[in-house]
């Protein structure tokens, strides 16, 4: 797969035309919902004329279609926003454009980022880059696949409970979920405010670090952003690494465990220490996640009411009908499921029993992480219990689908940086990802460590 360095210095127009051609020849994967062709070519010419310069000048990329970005509607893969043209761009997109990067299209996702397979897109699923009969993972499935197919050297995603890491794992690319607050959420369609993060896919860890270096930083338009801390580094001192025991149980696919152990061997060979550690609260993490996140989802999706923008039902008689039908028609089943769960756990009489309890448990989980990080620099484990599953395999059973998130939600709940790096393939050739998790603000270290063992055996 090509790296960013393979693009810089070329004619921007050639880069963009090549990416657009690759996008068109790979339409069968349904990784992209739209191409921003006209705008991309215009910007490419501006780069070639020297009007736009920067560290990513002329480098094409793709955004997940829940970033407000010019050139095509921002749909969040939903009927609700099918025709929504953003009047402004997300901070992350603006920062990349300021460095000369060129957005060539918008990637498919589970509608409003609700899901782990991209099968919940209102416009049809994205297919796995390595096996068209399997899911791309999700919710940032399209972004993972365009990176894996070498259409672009990097793509943007959002990760609320694994939506970057899991599709990165399923498609064999690097996926970065940064520390909560590292990248501005301004201009990104909100899913769950307390765990939403903005990250990227890349073909290698150094490229991911470069992109994150551009996107991260304090933004006055997002009060939750942290002061600038991300500085890409090279070379890491020997790390003391904890292998999370709960993630290596018999419930986890044998080939996945083998891939992790193999990666651990590579780390040890590079001079790092790896010991088994325990994180008991993770077994409750999924329960916490599927209370807190639907609660926030039900709140963040309340604005889609058909009044000011977005889908508006026709032929309605009353205000209640306008709300009911617009939302019924504009949301997919999984959106409605989460709105229902969220509304329930927030309702009077249940708030204390569900939401407040989940928040208390979340604090316990955070404390367990903090305790481990007193003795360990970072943690390691799988990204998902299995490699990519078959299209349709889990759609009938939401709980089974949610179980695929079991290893990615704990760092999200704790606001920790976590990355997915390729850890080889299964016997049938499906990629398997390795998850590296660090304390807050250790993002650059995680990427530097991953880079240091890339290509080793």
């Amino acid at each position: 797969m090509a790296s960013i360095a393979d693009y810089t210095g070329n004619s921007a127009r050639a880069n963009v035309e090549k990416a657009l051609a690759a996008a068109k020849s790979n339409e069968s994967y349904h990784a992209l919902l739209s191409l921003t062709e006209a705008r991309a070519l215009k910007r490419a010419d501006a780069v070639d004329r020297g009007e736009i310069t920067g560290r990513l000048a002329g480098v094409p990329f793709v955004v997940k279609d829940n970033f407000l970005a010019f050139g095509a509607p921002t749909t969040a893969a939903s009927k609700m926003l099918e025709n929504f043209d953003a009047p402004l761009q997300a901070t992350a997109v603006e920062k990349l454009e300021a460095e000369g990067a060129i957005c060539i299209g918008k990637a498919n996702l589970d509608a409003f980022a609700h899901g782990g397979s991209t099968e919940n897109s209102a416009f049809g699923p994205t297919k796995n880059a390595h096996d068209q009969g399997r899911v791309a993972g999700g919710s940032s499935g399209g972004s993972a696949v365009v990176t894996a197919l070498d259409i672009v050297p990097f793509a943007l995603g959002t990760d609320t409970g694994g939506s970057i890491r899991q599709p990165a794992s399923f498609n064999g690319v690097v996926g970065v979920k940064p520390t909560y607050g590292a990248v501005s959420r301004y201009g990104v369609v909100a899913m769950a405010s307390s765990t939403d993060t903005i990250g990227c896919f890349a073909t290698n860890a150094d490229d991911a670090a470069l992109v994150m270096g551009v996107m991260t930083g304090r933004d006055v338009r997002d009060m939750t952003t942290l002061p600038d801390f991300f500085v890409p580094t090279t070379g890491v001192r020997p790390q003391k690494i904890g292998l999370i025991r709960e993630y290596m149980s018999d419930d986890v696919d044998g080939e996945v465990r083998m891939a992790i152990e193999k990666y651990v061997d590579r780390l040890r060979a590079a001079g790092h220490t790896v010991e088994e550690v325990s994180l008991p609260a993770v077994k409750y993490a999924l329960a916490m996640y599927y209370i807190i996140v639907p609660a926030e989802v039900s709140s963040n999706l309340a604005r889609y009411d058909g009044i000011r923008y977005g889908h508006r039902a026709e032929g309605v008689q009353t205000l209640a009908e306008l709300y009911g039908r617009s939302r019924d028609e504009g949301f997919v089943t999984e959106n409605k499921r989460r709105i229902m769960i969220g509304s329930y756990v927030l309702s009077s009489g249940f708030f204390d029993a569900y939401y407040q309890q989940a928040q208390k448990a979340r604090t316990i989980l955070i404390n367990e992480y903090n305790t481990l990080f007193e003795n360990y620099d970072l943690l390691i484990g799988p990204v998902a219990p299995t490699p990519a599953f078959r299209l349709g395999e889990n759609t009938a059973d939401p709980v089974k689908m949610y179980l695929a998130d079991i290893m990615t939600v704990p760092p999200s709940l704790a606001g920790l940086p976590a990355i997915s790096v390729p850890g080889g393939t299964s016997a049938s050739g499906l990629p398997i990802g390795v998850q590296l998790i660090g304390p807050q603000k250790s993002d650059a270290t995680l990427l530097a460590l991953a880079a240091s063992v890339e290509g080793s055996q």
Partner: protein
Amino acid sequence: MSVYNDYEMTIGIECHVQLATKTKLFSSADNDARDAEPNSKVVPIDFGLPGMLPVLNREAVTLAVKAGKALNADIAHISRFDRKHYFYPDLPKGYQTSQMYQPIILAGYIDAPLDNGESVRVRIHHAHMEEDAGKLTHYGDYSLVDLNRAGTPLIEIVSEPDIHSASAARAYATELYRLMTYAGVTHGDLYHGNMRFDVNISVAKYGATELGKRAEVKNLNSFRSVEKAAEYEFKRQIDLIEKGEQVVQETRGWNDDKQITTSQRSKEDAQDYRYMPDADIPPIVLTDEEITEIQATVPKLPPEYRKEFAGLGVDSSVVGKIMSHKDYAEIVSAVLASGGRKAAKRVANWIASNLSTDETEVELQTPDVDDLLALADMTEKAEITSNAATELFNALMNGEVDPRKLAEERNLLQVSDEGAIAAIVDEVLADPASAKAVEDIRSGNDKAIGYLVGQIMKKSQGKANPGLAQKLIKERL
């Protein structure tokens, strides 16, 4: 003996105060939407576009901290925002950002002066910050949404149910208005809804151990309507009970034309707001030092002015009128400080008797204190008549300056030159028309002096000093 005398009303008031910030609570949009084109004071945050995030206006926090001082309340070191969910077209995000669990202003109290010179203490339960919603205008078969007001910063001041009469309700509302305007928390433009009152009222027989079911009369925007609504509800609820019917717990509206309350929605329709913490806004953290620093900038508040004015020797109704607007209180206070009690008393009386005390008036002219002192001095020295003083005072309040020059221009200065007045006195005494009066005075009837003084004033075109004229008449007769 009326049946109403057997009952006591219990009132708690929630008051929404619009903060005098330049921009909205969470966006850079202009906070002054008065008379603006619909949807012209709106940025994407107010519009609830996808991906928009709130950015807390620190000035709103500062004003809330100031309000806390006026309410004699503690300020929370940590307060947070929560989301209150409901669907309505004037609510762009589907939730109102408010403070449910950890409000910024904690318990406090205010003492509201009553007409009889006493005061009533009303405890404040808490006050929290929140954003306003937009406005709907209904037409035949459609409605239009105006989001200019959406996101306007408010504090909602929640009283304890310490109020037991309609007049006390009015006094509380009035004093709250004074406190908030004096502290600079709000512009206090009642006409534009800068302060809105929700009055919760129940009735119960004296001695009852439980309060009655309460009705909430929402969105009252004048002190008078607070009082009238409480009076109306008091009778309505007692009438229901006396008829053997139940008071329904419900929200009611005030019809100002008919002076009645009407049912809007009952408790059965009460919404579940599904409150939850707003993760987009970090907690507001304030140290004692920060709170002290902000509160040190709060100007003099009504209770301090009242203490000052207590020694003026004017009627409590005069003090009430001076206090009705911060600018008046400032003027009297300044005159008192530099001109003394007598001058301040004069100015206080001028204000009380000559000025509109329209509670919705916001923009006032404020005369120069030195001019007022000069005017008080001229009056004290009898250089002008009291009518002339009133005329000149009004001129000063209308923006004119230099009372001495004004008095000269308007020919209002009294003649105190003894020689000049003596000439007129002699002229009048010599007038045959005065013969009868002169006769009366000589025979000991002093009442006739008034007639002669009147003639002298007439001849001098009102400029003669009447005291001097009287003295000269007596000397001559």
